[in-house]
């Protein structure tokens, strides 16, 4: 058996101090294998985003350890973490986070700008990534010329362009209506079928149903971890 893609041990993250201390993550231990599609659910403030920031190397834990693709993040330098994010993680955000004045292609190309060494055929890779999310005919459109669903697809294409090991999506459908949400979720399911590991954060039970494993959080703790059959 190969090593799990994600392994956390007793992850702790606290905010504030004294009597008003908040444990955003409280001894979270978790293992996720390659190829899984995991949904993390829970009420607002339960620690989902904090967990995602840990997994994505955007934040460091106050205690415990975390290893992604064999790399231990807790003691990594800022510089090494930046490189780790670039190579290993693809982020998808609720607010898309596209550069509004740049074309879809330019937006998708962005992560490759920080790859060392630089990849060849950056434009071609960006174009293919856009094709992969079904926007091959929109590569020169600016975000303002695209619908919300299309914008989130551009963001997904951007997350994929560097061929990451892990796709992290924090409420990717939070800003979309239910029909476009379905489209985006179907795209993620398809990408997962193609072998991409996805960790998705949502407070929406329906969205979570697309995943084949659902982890429920409350007050910084995992309170439920259920594997479910892929929906037909």
């Amino acid at each position, binding site marked *: 058996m190969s090593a799990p893609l994600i392994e956390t041990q007793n992850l702790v993250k606290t905010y504030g101090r004294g009597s008003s201390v908040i444990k955003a993550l409280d001894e979270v231990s978790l293992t996720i294998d390659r190829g899984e599609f995991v949904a993390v659910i829970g009420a607002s403030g339960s620690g989902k985003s904090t967990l995602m*920031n840990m997994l*994505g190397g*955007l*934040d460091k834990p106050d205690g415990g350890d975390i290893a992604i693709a064999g790399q231990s993040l807790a003691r990594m330098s*800022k*510089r090494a973490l*930046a*490189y780790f*994010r*670039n*190579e290993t993680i693809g*982020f998808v*955000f609720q*607010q898309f*986070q596209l*550069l509004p*004045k740049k074309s879809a292609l330019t937006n998708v190309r*962005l*992560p490759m*700008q*920080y*790859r060392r060494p*630089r990849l060849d055929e950056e434009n071609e890779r960006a174009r293919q990534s856009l094709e992969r999310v079904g926007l091959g005919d929109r590569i020169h459109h600016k975000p303002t010329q695209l619908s919300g669903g299309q914008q989130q697809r551009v963001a997904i294409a*951007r997350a994929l362009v*560097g061929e990451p090991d892990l796709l992290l999506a924090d409420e990717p459908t939070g800003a979309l209506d239910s029909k476009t949400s379905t489209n985006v979720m179907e795209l993620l399911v398809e990408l997962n079928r193609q072998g991409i590991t996805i960790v998705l954060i949502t407070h929406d039970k329906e969205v979570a149903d697309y995943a084949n494993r659902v982890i429920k959080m409350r007050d910084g703790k995992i309170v439920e971890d259920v594997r479910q059959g892929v929906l037909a």
Partner: protein
Amino acid sequence: MRIPGLTTLTLASGSLLERPFRTLLTMLGIIIGVAAVFAMLSIGEGSRQKILENIDSVEARTISIFPNWNNGRASARRAWRPFTEQDVLDIQAIPGGEAATGELSQEYSIVSETSDWRANVIGADPQYLAANDLQMQRGRPITQTEIERRETVAVIGTSVVRSLFRGQDPMGERIKIQNIPFEIIGIVDETEGTNWRGQDQNNFVLVPRPTGRARLFGDDRLVRNQVRSIRIVGATHEDRARFEREVDFIMRRSRGLTADEAPDFRIFNFSANRQAVAETQRTLSLLLATMGAVSLIVGGVGVMNIMLVSVTERTREIGLRMAIGARGSDILSQFLTEALLLSIISGLLGLGLGYAVSQVSLGTDEIEMVFSPNIAILSFGSALLVGVVFGFLPAQRASQLNPIEALRHE
């Protein structure tokens, strides 16, 4: 092929061009600052070179002597006393002197067959041309004989030729001054520029001084053998002090002044004149330096301000870039490049402005400007320095943002 740093540069120029008007406003301070620094350095260099270049010129070897009221001391108040022809002769006798002349002149209307024109009529002697660094263009100068016989001959400057004769040959023609006909025997070569009063230096008619005194200047309060000022050429840089001592001695003797009495004449030399000009230029340079420094600082603060605004406006972009792998140093160099690009463009525009302004308004005789690559580099460099210094803080602030918070920024 990938050129290192090209991405950063494209990135920076793109974000500046997104808001061209704001960008231009921001650059204004630096543009003016660089222009002022450029002008200042050019003027400084100009005056330095002019002094060097003229150190051996006739002008530099000239001493001028003017009568003066007796230093304004009430008790010793005397009438203004002109010099005499004898003084001119005594000054001409100073050892090492090349030429010395007296001056006596008056503006008159000069009448030819077809038109008339106002010009300065100067009573000259044979050394007049040499003492004023003038050459003949055509014909011949006034001779000693013509002076002694008080002949009515004239040597004219090129402005008189142009204004009175309009393409016709003036040689041998007659002109009338105060209704007295003079025969033109020569034309003096053109001198460039204007004199210190801004008058045309080529607008004159030379006549023998005794002729002028007898027939023209008679109604002037100057009597017979007097002159208004004396010029002597020959006082080299090393020899000037001795010349001035000799002049002082001669004039005191002639005017009956003891060595410790205040003189009622003034001695001017090139270096005093240059010092006055240099003083003007120093003042101007100081003004420009102050203006340049203030503008550059204002421009720098403008750059800092616009960069801080830019960082704030683009906080989410910065957060995103960090999330997808930008290191702090990547963000730092992105914003520093932007600030630098801003100052590079401003610097170039500033050089252009400085040059343009110098061509339009400062190209006078008083203010000599000399341009050199070093001056351009130095003033351009001041823009770069401002860009780096004032761009650093915003860029550093950007690079130290927390990506999670930055992404949440509204």
